[in-house]
């Protein structure tokens, strides 16, 4: 980097606990936030908002949810999409059935419902571990999709089980334009990332990491395992639920239960593998990767292989590339893109010297 930490000392415990200890980083971060909130809504066009920025933000939020559970608390889950579905359908029903329910409060209750469901499916985690736990999360995946399709009440008796977004109005302001939906997503995502960051750096976060590294040892030193694991499931599902509500309302507009199937869960798992497990920044990097790679591939093939490769083959090719990248990352950089960024920062700190 172009700056050094020399001369900047923490003089209070509050300062020591800061997210960015250097004022250059702090101001850089503020500038980035200001850019995202103030400048991007004017600079971007509808395609960028609807096809890239909104899915990117929602997926990074979903990645964050799973990362808290898998990356920090070490409980592997293949049911992320189920908790997203619970959040989306619960938020929809709260909006629908309670008059005058504010949009954000509806999102919040959607998240809380998802958290409760998450706790139910997290309960077996005390007794069963590792791969056996996959069954619990897969059960969540299949049961939730089935319940949402089977019982019409959840989708207000829509014949195909589809829910549509309520009017996106907060305090009288309409957020239904692409730029508005972007701002809504960005605001919610920023708040939740701030929340998650604080949790991870709190005592609870350290308990999660202790459980992840070895839960028997964690139990021996007196960490309440059940409470810690269930909190991980609850908070992770809360964030996933809100991500699901945003996915349904801010990104797609209408969604059916099968929009949250197992392949969505895999997608979210890939985000955290590629981005970096146990990293907050990694969620953004992984989500950007997952959103941009298909666009990049289709653009590349449109330019270079126009007419040679048909779309079906392109999809297969995309699958192969994704799979190969997963394995590549697991072999070469198990800590993901976030680790690459960290390594770059460490190198650039002493640049142009090498050591």
């Amino acid at each position, binding site marked *: 980097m172009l700056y050094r930490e020399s001369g900047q000392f923490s003089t209070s415990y509050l300062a020591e606990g800061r997210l960015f200890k250097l004022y250059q980083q702090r101001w850089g971060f503020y500038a980035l936030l200001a850019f995202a909130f103030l400048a991007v809504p004017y600079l971007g066009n509808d395609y960028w908002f609807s096809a890239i920025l909104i899915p990117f933000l929602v997926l990074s939020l979903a990645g964050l949810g799973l990362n808290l559970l898998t990356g920090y608390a070490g409980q*592997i889950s293949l049911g992320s999409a189920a908790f997203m579905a619970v959040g989306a359908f619960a938020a929809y029903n709260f909006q629908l059935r309670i008059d005058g329910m504010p949009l954000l409060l509806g999102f919040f209750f959607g998240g809380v419902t998802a958290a409760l469901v998450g706790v139910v499916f997290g309960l*077996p985690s005390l*007794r*069963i*571990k*590792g*791969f*056996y736990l*996959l*069954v*619990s999360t*897969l*059960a969540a995946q*299949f*049961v939730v*999709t*089935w319940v949402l*399709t*089977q*019982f019409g009440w959840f989708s207000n008796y829509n014949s195909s089980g589809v829910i549509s977004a309520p009017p996106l109005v907060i305090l009288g302001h309409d957020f239904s334009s692409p730029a508005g939906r972007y701002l809504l997503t960005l605001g919610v995502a920023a708040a939740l990332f701030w929340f998650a960051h604080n949790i991870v750096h709190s005592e609870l976060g350290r308990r999660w990491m202790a459980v992840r590294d*070895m839960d*028997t*040892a964690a139990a*021996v030193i007196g960490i309440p395992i059940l409470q810690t694991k269930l909190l991980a499931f609850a908070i992770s599902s809360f964030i996933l639920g809100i991500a699901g509500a945003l996915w349904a309302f801010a990104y797609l507009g209408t969604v059916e239960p099968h929009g949250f199937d*197992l392949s969505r869960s*895999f997608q979210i*798992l890939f985000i955290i*593998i590629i981005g970096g497990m146990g990293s907050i920044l990694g969620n953004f990097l992984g989500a950007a990767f997952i959103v941009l790679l298909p666009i990049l591939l289709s653009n590349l093939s449109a330019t270079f292989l126009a007419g040679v490769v048909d779309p*079906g*083959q392109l999809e*297969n*090719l*995309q*699958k*192969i590339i*994704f*799979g*190969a*990248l*997963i*394995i590549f990352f*697991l*072999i070469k950089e*198990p800590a993901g893109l976030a680790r690459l960024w960290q390594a770059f920062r460490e190198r650039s700190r002493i640049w142009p010297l090498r050591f």
Partner: protein
Amino acid sequence: MEFFLEVLIGGLLAGLMYSLVAIGFVLIYKASGVFNFAQGAMVLFAALTFVSLLERGVPFWGAFAVTLLSMLMLAWAIERMVLRPLVNRPPITLFMATLGLSYIIEGLAQTLWGAQVHGLDLGISDEPFEVAGLLLSQFDLFAAGTAGLLVLALSLLFNKTRVGISLRAVADDQLAALSIGIKLQKVWMIVWAVAGFVGLVAGLLWGARLGVQFSLSLIVLKALPVLIIGGFTSIGGAIVGGLIIGASEKLAEVYLGPVIGGGIENWFPYVLALLFLLVRPAGIFGERAIERV
């Protein structure tokens, strides 16, 4: 009563089809501790290769041999490019690598052979016939017989041959096996190849039943609860688990389905497996892990 027995036996036989997929899992898990999510993709790859060769006019056994050879090559490639670089990593990493692997194999199979549905006729009619007043499917009986033969062959391989004994040694203790000169890489390759062969058999039977298509790779999701109930490390467990899942799934579909609504076969095995786990956290035949700090 007769109807109940028919449903039960139909379920038991269908369960053996799940066991066929689960056995592939168990083999790999036993020998290398890898939870191989790509088993379903291997089933798809094998079935798709076989049926595409058949459609191009290759005779049955020729196609079988070529497919087997391609499964061998696949096993070799997996050992070289995935398992060897990831040796000594935590099991969860290896599991995620097999997730990636399943994407690659599925993509590869469909790039090579296309995504359309192929019919596969093994020359066994699926007509029901009557035994003691019960209607049974001939095809199911054939599949059950194949599963039995496969288990017999595998147990002979494991117990009577030199290769099998080294496989068991590796499954028991990798470090000790290494120290007495067993080549770990070779054993892994053999195990993945055998799992590929099991995948081919499962792929043929499932392909004849459902048609060879992409959804074949999803039977891995059917095999998972079977594994959970039987335990990851026991071939016999895979059979017993398959029987339990198959029977209870069919019975639930018939008797519970009308009460709470249809389509429960997707999640019922999972809930059942979960209940089993709460009683026995390592399955019926699984080895209970002893934890030390």
